[in-house]
């Protein structure tokens, strides 16, 4: 079965510092990977996605992620964070089977930016 592990439940970072949010997945088939962001009491917004092609994926708000097949990882990075990046971040793997697509999410990482 496919699964996603986000290795850090909380990550505190100072403003303008770099950040990396870690994500590992397990899957025996081709995977499609996503990072979503959730602000308080809101739905999820897509940050970026990996479907195929270049393993370095750039998303919105200055975020990027690198797909590493050998390490089954898809870590999210930003070189310089802002207060507004404070939110919950979710890594997800999509598996397509029999015409259905299912997104399996990690437990989330709460990113807190301190001034």
């Amino acid at each position, binding site marked *: 079965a496919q699964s996603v592990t986000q290795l850090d439940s909380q990550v505190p970072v100072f403003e303008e510092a770099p950040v990396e949010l870690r994500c590992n997945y397990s899957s025996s088939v081709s995977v499609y990977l996503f990072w979503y962001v959730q602000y308080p009491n809101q739905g999820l917004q897509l940050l970026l996605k990996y479907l195929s092609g270049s393993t370095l994926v750039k998303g919105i708000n200055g975020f990027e992620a690198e797909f590493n097949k050998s390490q089954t990882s898809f870590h999210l990075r930003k070189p310089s964070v802002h207060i507004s990046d404070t939110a919950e971040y979710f890594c997800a793997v999509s598996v397509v089977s029999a015409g259905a697509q*299912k997104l399996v*999410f990690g437990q989330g990482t709460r990113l807190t930016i301190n001034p």
Partner: protein
Amino acid sequence: SQTIHQWPATLVQPVGSPLSLECTVEGTSNPNLYWYRQAAGRGLQLLFYSVGIGQISSEVPQNLSASRPQDRQFILSSKKLLLSDSGFYLCAWSVLWGIYSTEAFFGQGTRLTVV
């Protein structure tokens, strides 16, 4: 453009009362539809998904049911709510292009408190 509507935004219901949460999608045809639940401090759990009208797949046994009476309408129901049904419920949709998976788009969520 595609939009997803989910209502109500918040709901407080007594134990043992019925539940009906509705989600509709505009601007797309034959979407895959999903209901997720997010318990406090936890990740997203897939409850139900649907690939077409009347086709519902349940991911976990629980006190809830789902229905899809129209192509772009997805309803989450319960006959008698339990305290453990409290949480943040998110509706989402996605479209498959052949075997390729697109991202899922989320509604703004319904915060359900069972008292």
